[in-house]
């Protein structure tokens, strides 16, 4: 039983090297030998072909005037009209502004908070406390945005929500926080902090665990205090992780989390709430402008790809460390 298998394997290795004609026969043998493996591969490959590459083909309607009756193939080409329409639309600067402001608020507030929380957790030597706090702050990550939004609706509910009273008391105001456009962005950032700051520390805590402990001993001998040790050893030690996470975050800048924004959007805050993701939904799904909204979505993903390669290139230039 063993011998033929070994032989077959050896012959394939030989067959893999010679030029085309023999290789094809080699593939037939290879295929026959591994037919069960190829059969197992089939459902997954079909999945990728249909549900991942199918929509990529469907992106072509961004350059067409899609008519459901004619389908993706039959609809007429219109060049870049959908894109020029979008750039000329007054919605465009508003969407770009809203998206970028939210992205920068998250980058500027939520991102540093994650690093600070990781640093503080890393300083804890009481392992019971450390584990308990970690256990608690990771939980919100696993809750749906629907739950986070619902909690916000209850906590900030007009007149009766506990945080409605607290926040209005704090600022001496009496506004409906859930519908006031000025409160939309703070709410979004607050939700993001509550849901994901804890979870985000995992990667930084893992990086912090790899910082060379000998350096701390040397620093202590040199008389460096807690803060100087963090500043001169800990932070430089996790610099490359911070850069990688920053590149990833910048690459995701235009992806403002559809579910979160959609759930917090209402008739009164649309002016500040509309971002690319929700706009694609409202214009595409609810109004049926399929080609136009596909063009908006494609524009967004192309900018995302440019951003991620751009930041990677910049960080390689200045720091010699990048993502790829």
């Amino acid at each position, binding site marked *: 039983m*063993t011998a033929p298998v070994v032989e077959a394997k050896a012959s*394939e290795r030989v067959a893999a090297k010679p030029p085309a004609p023999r290789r094809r026969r080699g593939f037939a043998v290879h295929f026959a030998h*591994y037919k*069960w*493996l190829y059969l*197992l*591969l089939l*459902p*997954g*490959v079909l*999945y*990728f072909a*249909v549900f*991942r*590459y*199918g*929509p*990529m*083909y469907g*992106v072509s*309607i961004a350059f067409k005037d*899609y008519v459901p009756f004619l389908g993706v193939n039959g609809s007429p080409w219109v060049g870049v009209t959908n894109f020029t329409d979008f750039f000329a639309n007054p919605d465009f600067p508003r969407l770009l502004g809203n998206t970028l402001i939210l992205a920068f608020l998250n980058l500027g507030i939520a991102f540093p908070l994650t690093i600070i*929380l990781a640093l*503080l957790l890393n300083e804890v*030597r009481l392992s019971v*406390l450390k584990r308990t*706090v970690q256990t*608690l702050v*990771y*939980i919100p990550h*696993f809750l*749906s*945005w*629907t739950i986070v939004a*619902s*909690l916000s*609706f*209850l906590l900030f509910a007009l007149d*009766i929500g*506990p945080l409605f009273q*607290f926040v209005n008391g704090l600022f001496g105001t009496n506004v409906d926080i859930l519908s006031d456009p000025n409160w939309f962005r703070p709410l979004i950032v607050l939700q993001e902090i*509550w849901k994901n700051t*804890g979870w985000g520390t995992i990667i930084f805590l*893992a990086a912090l665990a790899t910082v060379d*402990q000998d350096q701390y*001993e040397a620093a202590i001998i040199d008389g460096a205090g*807690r803060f100087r040790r963090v500043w001169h050893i800990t932070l430089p030690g996790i610099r490359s992780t911070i850069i990688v996470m920053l590149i990833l975050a910048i690459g995701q800048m235009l992806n403002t989390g*559809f*579910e979160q924004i959609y*759930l917090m959007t*209402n008739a*009164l805050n649309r002016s500040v709430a509309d971002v690319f993701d929700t706009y*694609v*939904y409202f214009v*595409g799904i609810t109004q049926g402008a*399929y080609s136009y909204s*596909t063009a908006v*979505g494609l524009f967004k*993903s192309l900018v995302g*790809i440019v951003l991620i390669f751009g930041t990677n290139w910049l960080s390689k230039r200045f720091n010699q460390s990048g993502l790829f």
Partner: protein
Amino acid sequence: MKIHNTRGGRVFDAANYVFLSLVGIITLLPFIYVLAGSFANEAEITRRAFFVWPEQFTLSAYEYIFSTPAFTKALVTTVLVTLVGTLIQLILTVTMAYPLAKKNLRGRKLIMSLEVFAMVFSGGMIPTFLLVKDLGLLNTYWALILPAAINPFSLIIIKNFFQELPDELEESAKMDGATEIGILWRILLPLSKPVLATFALFYAVGIWNDFMSPLLYLSDNNMWTLQMYLRQVTAASDLLGTGNVDPSYIPPEQGIKFAVIVVATLPILIFYPFLQKHFAKGMLIGSVKG
């Protein structure tokens, strides 16, 4: 290493411990408030700003929601979709990861690079919606399961896991005459039980929490999942201007909102300890070797 703590260091430690404890408590407070509110009566919810313990225990909110067909149907639907969806995701991912873990399988590199490309670039919301529509999956539960049936990241992690299992296991099974499928079923799967259990939990959480797919693909509100129902119940007020709400719907009383949130959160909290046991390990293996 023994660190000699200075006075300033001790003050910092104390402040840090207090601060982190507060962070942990604040994270938990919304849950406690909602849990307490779900057992409180209407008057108490409107009267008291914040409480962690109801003055009068009542089960009326739970009695009401569990006697509402729309709620019980959404709950049963979500449980079933989550179970079937998790099973399908596991089967598809494992059957694809196993052949891809064979270093001498031809075409493997091509498939892997196509898969990685699909991680970087996707068709986006509208083309995916049109595909689901053209396949006749709109207003079917398959639309919640199939479009995201394989997560490329977990495929890579499981593939790497299979690759790292010692080859000798398979060699000896082959000598005993086992087929490839027999090896996968009788040797690799039992060995990867903990890993697969972890992924199953993550898949289940993902499907349970999914709001976008039902929003996009289920326009029939008789088919709604728990997340859609939750959205309807908690946001049904003068605020809603975004569509997708049944106009004949009468906004529920306060306590019901609290109870529905508790029911939607509870399974996640129950499974959280099992998730937590594995995710740090699993995530790290993935990020280092993926």
